[in-house]
């Protein structure tokens, strides 16, 4: 469920990047310096979403190994 949501967010960002932002650097009304900031922000958002996914994977990993000899509990 969470993975589906994050995937859709990531696709939205990709779509935005590939369609709406493609001319960002050559846009007459956008300073190239500001274009870089927008790109970095997008990249950061994408990374934060991916970190959320890693966190979900981690919780899942702990849950699946709850009965393993390592006796791991979720620390979250």
């Amino acid at each position, binding site marked *: 469920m969470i993975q589906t949501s994050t995937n859709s967010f990531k696709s939205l960002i990709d779509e935005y990047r590939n369609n709406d932002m493609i001319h960002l650097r050559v846009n007459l009304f956008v300073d190239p310096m500001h274009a870089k900031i927008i790109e970095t922000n997008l990249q950061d958002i994408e*990374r934060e979403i991916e*970190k959320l996914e*890693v966190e979900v994977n981690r919780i899942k*990993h702990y849950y699946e190994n709850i009965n393993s000899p390592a006796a*791991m509990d979720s620390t979250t």
Partner: protein
Amino acid sequence: MINPFNKFETFGIIANRGKRKKIARTIFEHMLELSERSIGIPNTETENFTTAIDTILANESIRSLCQQQDPQLIEKITIDILDFINNTKKTINKTADPFVKENELKNIFQNSNKEKFQNDWKVVKRYLDDTYSRKEIDPSFYEQEFKNSFENKKLEKNPTQSFESIQEHFIEKWSALIQEKQAKWEQEIIELERRRFCNELFEQIEELEKLQEELEPFTNEISRLWDLSKGKWQSVNFDILNRYAELLKKDKALQDLAEMLGRMRQTEKELEEKSFSTIDIKQQWKLEYASKADLIGIKESDDLSSLLPTETALLADETMQFIFFKKFAEKKLQTFEYQANILSNNEETNKKKEQDEDAQGPFIICVDTSGSMHGTAENVSKTLCFAILKIAIRDNRKCFLISYSTQLMTLNLTDFKTSIDKLIEFLSMSFNGGTDATPAMQEALNLLETDEFRKADIIMLSDFIMPDFELPIQVQILKAKEKKTQFHSLVIGTIRNPTTIKDFNNNWLYDTNNPNSMLTLVKNLKTF
């Protein structure tokens, strides 16, 4: 007003200046209000000191001290707590950080990239396996995640995350663990230091209670005793103070005499005239006729620049010219009259005279400790000194004691903390040796040159069995008298030595053979 916590606020080494100010104020107000709650500043703002501060403030001994509601004492305790914070932080900074290596390893991995990953990860994984349980951090999970990111399995349903995202997540988790360990380590040091500080504090409070009892004859100002209680006074015998306090209680006349001598300066309150000059600037409109701003009429003058055209017409005819010249010479030419209103600033100097009432002045006591004073005279002079010094401490007056025989001993009672042991030494010593009052008087006269004792009066206690003062000293005494310094002599003995006491403004005799002598003396002083 001087900020008592300025040292901590300016030079403290925890947090920033604003937060240090907040910490100092909160501790002070917390103690003043006897609050039972936590100081309410999170540990992150106090660099883990909140718990320790709360524990110190919750202590019963501290709370009972604070119940006395003495702001000066609370100020001093606050300064001690702030010193504890600073010193503990210094100790933490000086102690070798056990997490340096781990932080270095973390930084290396944080800056690692896909190419260097394999090598760096091996070291990191080994370190994490040895240091942390899987419950805290599981390297095998991250290893699998990194592996997936390299294989770049872009599945429709379950795409993998980028290497950078996994790396960031991993570093965040690891940093949190290091921070947690570091905070725990710091808190252990703080706790250790807190216990040491509390032990010292409790010892100081015990010492304070003892001092309060022992120095009761001298002062009841607990804030003064707080500073004193930091010293090691176990070896000092305070019994002597109590003995003289008892003597003083029994001899009411002696107490009165000391009070009278203490008041000498008070009765001579000087009224000093001080003149002040104040400059007031007042704005007012001023009329100026030279300026041609407004035309207000016509006048007679010789101002050629304001001539009426009818007057200039006189110059058109040769015969009429003379009339013009006549009018000019008589200043009766018709001219326009102008005027202007100009705003000008006027300075007014006011001189005021103010009468300044002199505060209670300091006094210098010269006590003869020669062998001739041994016995009753010794007891009387010591008790009298004790009483005068007590008044000085009570009234916060500056007082200087000079005891002399063949040698001089000086004692500045302005700082009670540093002089109490010298005072005990003076009260315990036995009087012996010859009398030489000249160096003592010279010392007293030198003191008059200092700002601190410029307005002091000099009281000399002696049997005055001694030669006259040397001539230069006598001249200096005369000069000091001109500056309104009063010289009092109290002869403790049976006879006055007229040649010596002539240099003093007031001379009194305490006849050691007459039991009613003190009462007579006090009566004389009261009528003075």
